[in-house]
């Protein structure tokens, strides 16, 4: 019975100016969040009937976002802007997606690949992380022959640095494998571009007409104090966060590796917390030393997410706020501790410029020091390939991602700007569009900057509170299995029903796709009947109606973008000035009445 349609009247439209629900506006790739939330809310409660329906929703998501099974575990950017945020808690969109993901992954592993006609040019992708794979996926679907060059021995890039207790290996591996297989991308592993014989020129000679460079940020940033590198970073026991996470994900670090050791983690970002929580799970007595202060609302507040801080705190990780590292104390080539002066300011008007109070200094003992203060691109390779300008910065157009030095090269992902996974994916999509325009010699910028307006929270008397997210208690989660419990079918339906579906219909159309409605028909106002009383303004839950002064007097007008065609204003209007076009309800009531009359007549 459960069957959705995504074509014709039910296809989601894109427009240059359009309203979106805030979650979709916030999502860098504008995933159809509202549509899939509504579809989840209409799932059958019987698991066997729901399973094919869940896959249908998954297929719909997959088409636009093949990384969605991973997003369901690690992203949740949309939740930050949810209209419900201030009224009872954001919709748990990430967990809803994870719920779809859990059913979808086994299906994806055996899903039959698409038959795509690859009749277009060869395109090279340098770097098999989220940005590169997303570009490759999109270009393959457009008919380009894509080859991905990956420096390491597996695709995924920085996604492998996400600890397993947050993202299970199977989800990531299957997603990556599925992407490559579904669209038929060529992959060359262990091939580093910009080093040795593999150069951009060689790619050009091999027949690649365009290249997307998304090599990410493989180089850890070193610890500095007063703009000078801190001495002692070559001591035994000092390592960098990225390297550490890489080794853990490759299984090169045995369990209980840190048992009986004191681990100090420097940094206040999410990666530092990943490192600390991983070190804690390896048995270390762990402390985080962050430059930033505890108050997240201040300018100098710690950048890590609240959930990470809470998780770390629960797991017994000590967090030392507002401390820098001035010196690493070494003893016979081993690191023994760090000297931490109080940090009085992190940022000033110009940006990052920490100040310290030398009188207030703390000495922390430790056996292992893991520096996680950020990472950067491999500048040498970029310089050799001539992708930087005279100031040593990347020379790239921020809108089209086209390199200013080499017109056939496009640059994106963390390499261009460090951000969330989905921001890298967005770069991939932007680059794919740019590459197509470049190869077809079309205008590179026309219509690229899209302006979205966000719809406000609808009016209602009650708002529902968010469900509690269940974490395994800290004493039972000192392992690399997931610590967060996902939604059951019933919980997912319940949470999806909480979604206010505050965005406009045109970017959703869930009800049309599932057959609850034939089409969307916004309200029309019969101006000769409207007296401008304004009852409709208060009847509308979506603030779609306004009063407007015209020559004849005052009338009401409806914003067709905001109108949901619910008919509240139609039934509220005392002068019958509002209609839903050819509303099936009116016609149906007439038919119904005719049927009644017939029966009454027969009975008499």
């Amino acid at each position, binding site marked *: 019975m459960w069957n959705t349609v995504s074509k014709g009247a039910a296809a989601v439209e894109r427009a240059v100016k359009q309203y979106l629900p805030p979650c979709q506006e916030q999502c860098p790739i504008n995933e159809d969040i509202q549509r899939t939330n509504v579809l989840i809310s209409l799932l059958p409660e019987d698991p066997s009937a729901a399973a094919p329906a869940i896959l249908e929703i998954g297929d719909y998501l997959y088409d636009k976002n093949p990384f969605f099974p991973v997003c369901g575990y690690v992203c949740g950017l949309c939740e930050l802007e949810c209209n419900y945020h201030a009224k009872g808690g954001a919709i748990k969109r990430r967990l809803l997606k994870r719920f779809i993901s859990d059913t979808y992954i086994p299906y994806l592993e055996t899903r039959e690949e698409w038959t795509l006609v690859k009749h277009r040019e060869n395109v090279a992708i340098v770097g098999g992380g989220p940005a590169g794979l997303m570009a490759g996926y999109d270009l393959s679907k457009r008919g380009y022959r894509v080859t991905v060059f990956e420096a390491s021995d597996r695709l995924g890039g920085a996604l492998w640095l996400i600890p397993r207790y947050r993202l299970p290996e199977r989800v990531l591996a299957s997603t990556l494998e599925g992407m490559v297989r579904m669209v038929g991308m060529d992959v060359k592993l262990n091939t580093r571009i910009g080093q040795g014989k593999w150069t951009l020129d060689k790619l050009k000679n091999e027949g690649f007409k365009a290249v997307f460079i998304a090599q990410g940020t493989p180089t850890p940033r070193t610890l500095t104090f007063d703009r000078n590198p801190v001495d002692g970073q070559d001591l035994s026991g000092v390592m960098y966060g990225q390297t550490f996470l890489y080794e853990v994900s490759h299984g090169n670090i045995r369990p209980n590796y840190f048992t009986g050791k004191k681990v100090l983690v420097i940094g206040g970002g999410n990666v530092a917390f990943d490192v600390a929580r991983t070190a804690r799970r390896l048995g270390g007595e762990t402390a985080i030393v962050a430059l930033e202060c505890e108050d997240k609302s201040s300018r100098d507040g710690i950048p890590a997410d609240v959930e990470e801080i809470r998780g770390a705190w629960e797991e017994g990780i000590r967090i030392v706020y507002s401390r820098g590292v001035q010196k690493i104390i070494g003893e016979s080539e081993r690191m023994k501790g760090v000297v931490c002066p109080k940090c009085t300011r992190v940022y000033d008007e110009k940006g990052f410029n920490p100040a310290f109070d030398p009188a207030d200094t703390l000495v922390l003992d430790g056996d292992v020091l893991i520096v996680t203060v950020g990472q950067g691109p491999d500048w040498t390779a970029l310089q050799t390939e001539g992708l930087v300008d005279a100031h040593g910065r990347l020379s790239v157009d921020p809108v089209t991602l086209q390199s200013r030095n080499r017109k056939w090269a496009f640059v994106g992902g963390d390499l261009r700007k460090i951000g969330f996974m989905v921001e890298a994916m967005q770069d991939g999509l932007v680059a794919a569009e740019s590459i197509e325009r470049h190869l077809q010699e079309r205008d590179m910028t026309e219509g690229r900057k899209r302006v979205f307006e966000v719809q406000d929270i609808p009016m209602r008397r009650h708002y529902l509170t968010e469900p509690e997210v269940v974490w395994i208690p800290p004493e039972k989660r000192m392992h690399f299995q997931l610590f967060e419990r996902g939604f059951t079918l019933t919980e997912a339906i319940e949470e999806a029903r909480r979604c206010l579906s505050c965005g406009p219909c045109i970017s959703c159309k869930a009800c049309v796709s599932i057959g609850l409605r034939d089409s969307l028909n916004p309200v029309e106002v019969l101006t000769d009947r409207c007296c401008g009383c304004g009852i409709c303004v208060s009847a509308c839950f979506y603030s779609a109606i306004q009063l407007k002064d015209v020559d004849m007097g005052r009338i009401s007008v409806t914003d067709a973008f905001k109108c949901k065609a619910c008919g509240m204003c139609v039934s509220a209007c005392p002068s019958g000035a509002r209609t839903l076009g050819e509303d099936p309800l009116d016609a149906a009531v007439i038919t*119904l009445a005719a049927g009644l009359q017939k029966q009454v007549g027969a009975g008499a």
Partner: protein
Amino acid sequence: MDDEPKLVCFSCKFGWGYLTKQEGLKDASDFLMPVECSGKLDAIHLLKVFKEGADGILILACEEEHCHFQEGNFRTVKMLYLLKEVLQAHGIEKDRVRIALSLDPEGRSIPGRIAQMKKSLMALGPLNRTLL
């Protein structure tokens, strides 16, 4: 059957029977009418069906706080409160209009609810349409 009461049932598409084929639900009553939102119903619609021969009206609306269009169900409850007063002033029993606020995706309870209401309509007897 000539003396069977004529019951018109309006049901919200977002809360009732969306997992069942609409034709299947039609069997439950000759006069079942799915609507996008119960809040869309106007008193005029209800009076019209009374006037044309209905003996009673059953409205199946979404659960409280779960209307897809925010509070359409609440609007209907408010509207019905007033409508019932008006009907009573004209000598028509309030019980001829009922609303159920619940969720039933498969619509299993719809035939039962209709039968139950028909039974109480039977006790009330046919509606004297001259009162309208």
